[in-house]
């Protein structure tokens, strides 16, 4: 029977959770890299034994770790993220120009076809790529060189490139999302980029419908329908049916349209999941009730999924990279909280149970299907 491996990044290390296809009994390994912030652990879609981890620390900076055996052993690989050419400036919080400075890797995304090719989304916002298994990194600087680059501003969490979505069939097309600049798309493998934010409306920026400047929190795509994108924005849940050319709101009956993660069911392209959060200053579930909301209609109509989730006194958050789905049948859904719980549902969200309850604050959750 197939198994699953859940890769969890936390404020103080990484954890690897494994189970068979029933997904009711779990082995927990970790902490790996104890004491370090693990923003993301990602498996290669082309080789499940190949893992990459972003390990960082306020003291010692950025390290990238690679495993070739599914997380049993790790080796540090390249950690030099040098911006291409003269980096220039972006806008600082006070509106003044601020030099581009590398802080950390937020997100790693393996190539769909080559285990040695991996993308890194970094703060200050830029996209890097390695084609040698993480040993060396080159910036795809056409993104940051876009005319709007000098006007990008950090959000409260820093100016991070946090989402990388690859087209399943067209290797030239990649979407990225930056807080708080918005969504950008390349159709030539990363040489040139253009913003794809039409239809987004953000109160709190001078022109609510500006081409650039939106605080996009997360994007999701189903590989069977790559022109349909879903977005959790700072406020608003959005959908595009034309590969990002235009967006429309699908928040519908959600109790709050603020939140961080969004994901799509592995077998139902119109089934999507979000976790509403009360507001941008009160980063916890409305009414202290932790609810995943599922739409089976591609948005607008949402149902609360509560079975097994705390329905009182719950004031944790779920961060943007901390939800994932597996491709078993029924589809498994997973998310981690800033309170250190990792919840799993083996029935597409109908019922939930914690795999672990007391980890450090969870920054990211990924899941792999094992042969």
């Amino acid at each position, binding site marked *: 029977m197939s198994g699953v491996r859940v890769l969890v990044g936390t404020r103080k290390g990484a954890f690897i959770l494994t189970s068979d296809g029933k997904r009711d009994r779990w082995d927990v390994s970790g902490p790996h890299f104890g004491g370090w912030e693990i923003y993301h652990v990602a498996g290669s879609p082309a080789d499940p034994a190949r893992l990459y981890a972003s390990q960082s620390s306020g*003291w*010692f*900076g950025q390290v990238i770790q690679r495993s070739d055996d599914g997380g049993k052993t790790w080796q540090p690989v390249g*950690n*030099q993220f040098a911006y291409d050419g003269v980096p220039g400036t972006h806008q600082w919080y006070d509106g003044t120009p601020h030099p581009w400075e590398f802080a950390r890797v937020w997100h790693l995304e393996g190539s769909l076809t080559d285990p040695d090719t991996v993308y890194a989304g970094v703060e200050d916002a830029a996209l890097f790529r390695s084609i040698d298994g993480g040993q060396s990194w080159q910036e795809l600087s056409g993104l940051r060189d876009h005319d709007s680059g000098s006007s990008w501003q950090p959000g409260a969490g820093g100016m991070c490139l946090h989402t990388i979505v690859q087209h399943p069939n067209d290797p030239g097309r990649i979407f990225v999302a930056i807080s708080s600049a918005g969504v950008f798309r390349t159709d030539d493998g990363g040489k040139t980029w253009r913003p794809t934010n039409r239809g987004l409306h953000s109160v709190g920026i001078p022109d609510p419908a500006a081409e650039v400047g939106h605080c996009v929190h997360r994007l999701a795509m189903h590989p069977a329908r790559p022109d349909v994108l879903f977005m959790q924005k700072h406020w608003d849940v959005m959908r595009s049916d034309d590969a990002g050319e235009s967006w429309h709101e699908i928040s519908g009956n959600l109790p709050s349209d603020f939140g961080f993660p969004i994901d799509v069911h592995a077998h139902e392209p119109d089934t999507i999941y979000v976790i509403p959060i009360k507001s941008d200053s009160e980063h916890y579930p409305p009414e202290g009730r932790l609810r995943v909301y599922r739409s089976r209609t591609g948005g607008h109509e949402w149902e609360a999924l509560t079975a097994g989730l705390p329905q009182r006194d719950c004031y944790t958050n779920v961060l943007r990279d901390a939800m994932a789905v597996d491709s078993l049948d029924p589809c498994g859904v997973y998310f981690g909280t800033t309170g250190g719980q990792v919840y799993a549902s083996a029935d597409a969200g109908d019922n939930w149970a914690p795999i672990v309850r007391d980890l450090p604050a969870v920054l990211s959750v990924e899941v792999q299907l094992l042969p």
Partner: protein
Amino acid sequence: MIRVMLPAHLRTLAHVAGEISLHVEGQVTQRSVLDALEVRYPMLRGTVRDHATQRRRAFVRFFACEQDLSHDLPDVPLPQAVATGAEPYLVVGAMAGG
């Protein structure tokens, strides 16, 4: 040989236990010691000094002979006791943060 003591997280990263002994060619300075450290343990590149500027990371400190050498210029000779191996050169994670 130059004796170097790393903070716990960097010992783990470099897969070493306890003190490190380094051979340093020429004058013993902070730059020459850290250069030798990074040649022997390349996974430490970027964790003590910035890759590009070679400046000390903000929350890393350098101590030796009960002195804070963190603000000394990198090419100033280290104390004779460090150069002879009588005293270790300490790379320290600053007491900061959580």
